[in-house]
């Protein structure tokens, strides 16, 4: 007793040695905190750089320079039943020449002038009239996008200070453009075409509708397969499977599959779905199947964990009052585990949405100017569309690539937001 007391007394908590020790322990704690803070600042910094550079490059693609042109269709004499074959080209050409007062120019100069407007102007007018034949009876105004070089000029991407022979637009064309601006027919509205147009070789007309529809169908197929299969597999492994070497082997394999690079699943899809089953190339069906294979392991793991996290008292209580195993699972355990399962599913689907490599291998990087109306229609997906645009020579695609990435990021943020909402709202803590 006295020895202990003596011991206590000999420690002088105010001695310099102890003070130094305390100081170093506190310092270690402060350092740890600082490391964590630095790591977070680092991560946030990179995120800011990423989003910032995308925004700086991409924000210009969210507006499009257009010119509004009055066309008098009453005098065109077009047959209402044969609108598809009417001579739209000369009609639109005349209207475009009129708006800039370029009718009297020589043929070559006229061509240089017409280069200012998108090549597809005639088709745009045609499609709008077919959609609304009432316009045939009078004068109406049409919005025609400017072609890419002039869009870039209007946005300041092509500098007027560059010597004439080094830029895509010559001085005369710039003068004609300035004349249109002075006339007040040029405007820069929000570029809805970026969302609602399908792909095009002209940047001023290219949009993401094809890619969004393709991604949508792929994700539908992916969900329809991976969700039921994943839940069924997880329920079996968690609730029914005996604990033996075979189930251990299966479990190890599932965990391994979750870490396999996605390009491997693409190769598998190429060999199996396209090679053996003869499914069509570039179809969202195949994309969805491949993505389902990729998300399945993750989904099984997440579902098993969430089943496991339901307290066994609930299972035992259900079984104890005479419920069958099937009833215990479907009436009690699965509903309680569902919020976590849904969260996991949405996050896996978000990962599938951003996946590029497997889709490149099964041909979902093709060019097409239409949207997909079903799982068999060939289409691209958002990430592969970004890939195609990033490789296009036209200058306008540089900003459109960044804009497309921003759109994809918006979808991902939306999906993750839903996942977080579901978790906050429905998750039960035990």
């Amino acid at each position, binding site marked *: 007793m006295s020895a202990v007391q003596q011991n206590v007394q000999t420690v002088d908590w105010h001695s310099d040695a102890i003070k130094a020790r305390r100081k170093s322990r506190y310092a270690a704690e402060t350092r740890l905190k600082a490391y964590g803070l630095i790591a977070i600042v680092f991560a946030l910094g990179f995120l800011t750089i990423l989003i910032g550079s995308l925004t700086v490059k991409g924000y210009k693609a969210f507006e499009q320079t257009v010119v509004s042109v009055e066309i008098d269709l009453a005098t065109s004499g077009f047959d209402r039943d044969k609108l598809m074959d009417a001579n739209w080209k000369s009609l639109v050409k005349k209207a475009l020449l009129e708006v800039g007062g370029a009718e009297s120019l020589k043929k070559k100069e006229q061509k240089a002038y017409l280069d200012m407007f998108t090549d597809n102007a005639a088709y745009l007018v045609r499609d709008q009239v077919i959609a609304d034949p009432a316009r045939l009876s009078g004068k109406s105004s049409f919005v025609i996008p400017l072609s890419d070089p002039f869009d870039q000029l209007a946005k300041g991407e092509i500098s007027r200070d560059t010597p004439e022979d080094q*830029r895509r637009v010559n001085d005369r064309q710039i003068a004609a453009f300035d004349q249109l601006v002075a006339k007040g027919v040029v405007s820069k509205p929000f570029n809805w075409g970026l969302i609602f147009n399908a792909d095009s070789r002209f940047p001023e007309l290219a949009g993401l509708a094809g890619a969004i529809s393709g991604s949508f169908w792929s994700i539908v197929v992916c969900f329809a397969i991976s969700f039921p299969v994943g839940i069924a597999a997880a329920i079996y492994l968690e609730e029914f499977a005996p604990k033996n070497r075979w189930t251990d082997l299966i479990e190890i394999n599932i965990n391994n599959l979750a870490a396999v690079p996605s390009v491997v699943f693409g190769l598998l899809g190429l060999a199996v779905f396209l090679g053996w089953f003869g499914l069509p*190339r570039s179809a969202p069906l195949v994309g969805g199947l491949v993505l389902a294979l990729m998300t399945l392991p993750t989904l099984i793991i997440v579902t098993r964990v969430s089943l496991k996290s339901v307290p066994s008292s609930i299972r035992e209580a259900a079984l104890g009052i005479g419920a069958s195993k099937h009833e215990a699972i479907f009436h009690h355990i699965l509903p309680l585990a569902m919020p976590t399962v849904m969260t996991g599913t949405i996050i896996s689907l978000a990962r599938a949405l951003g996946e590029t490599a497997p889709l490149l291998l099964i041909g979902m990087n093709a060019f097409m100017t239409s949207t997909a109306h079903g799982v068999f229609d060939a289409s691209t997906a958002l990430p592969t569309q970004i890939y195609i645009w*990033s490789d296009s020579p036209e200058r306008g695609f*540089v900003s459109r690539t960044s804009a497309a990435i921003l759109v994809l990021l918006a979808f991902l943020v939306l999906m993750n937001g839903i996942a977080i909402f579901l978790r906050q709202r429905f998750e039960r803590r035990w």
Partner: protein
Amino acid sequence: MTLLRLTAAALIASAAFAGAAHARDQIKIVGSSTVFPYMQAAAEEYANKSGKPAPVVESTGTGGGFKVFCGGIGPDFPDISNASRAIKDSEIKLCADNGVVDITEAKIGFDGLTIAMDQAAGDMDLTKEQLYKALAAELPDGKGGFVANASKNWSDIDPKLPNTPITVFGPPPTSGTRDAFVELVMDAGCSKQPGMADLKKADEKKYKEVCSRMRQDGPFIEAGENDNLIVQRLEADKNAVGIFGYSFLYENSDKLKGAKIEGVEVSEESIADGSYPISRPLFFYVKNAHRDVIPGLKEFLTEATSEEALGDDGYMVERGLTPLSAELREATRKAVADAVKLSK
């Protein structure tokens, strides 16, 4: 659990659909990434004009395109394959083995390979031999053996060239552009080296191997298939040069300029009249058995070979294709219209 039941039903339904053979109403095109933008243009124009389903154009590379194209006949296989070189004998054989015996070759124009650099960089005038000496992995030592390429600066090759480090961004081996570069520049430069003519006679395989191998010790950088990345790199490094198709130089003419090759400036005119020494013809190949089966294929072929597409002011030319002469265009149009069978 209605959700589970619904998804299960959807699954079974989609499986049933997949089992049934599906007819195809879209034209399918695969092949070269160089021809891709031109076929894109034809596909979009065709879809817009006719209002029919838009053709599906996929950029797989020339070799990859033929692999799928020659896979067989039927809706699962593409109708058209684009190529930045003529079809090889081995590919004709592959086609024939799978029953694809009747194909038509259509030459659509030329593409110039450009050696480009930033506008602010000094002008360069290179010969094929200089390029070979700058980029080959091993050079002949003149005694029948080979030594690793040691030149670091352009001036090491020729004192007239600038005293700046050799930095060349180029396409990877999977690219048709790389095939063309090796064939047009490396082989040509290589064959001029002393002793190489004898080697070609004695051991052609070895000759091909040493002539086509690009160096991997730094000066030559494979920049992936993405040519826009090369453009960005060239802007960042004024000493660097890049190898790509003429359409990229054309689109970026405010940022980049081309080097002279054998004293000839790269331009549409010099490529078209053949004076620019490194240009290659571009083709597409059609499976004639598909002509009457795939809806719209004939109309599409007419569109893709029309004067509006291939002509001097055509929309393919607007995208950077160097047009054929009027007679050659007429020949292509006739060959495609009459489904002339490729014979080799």
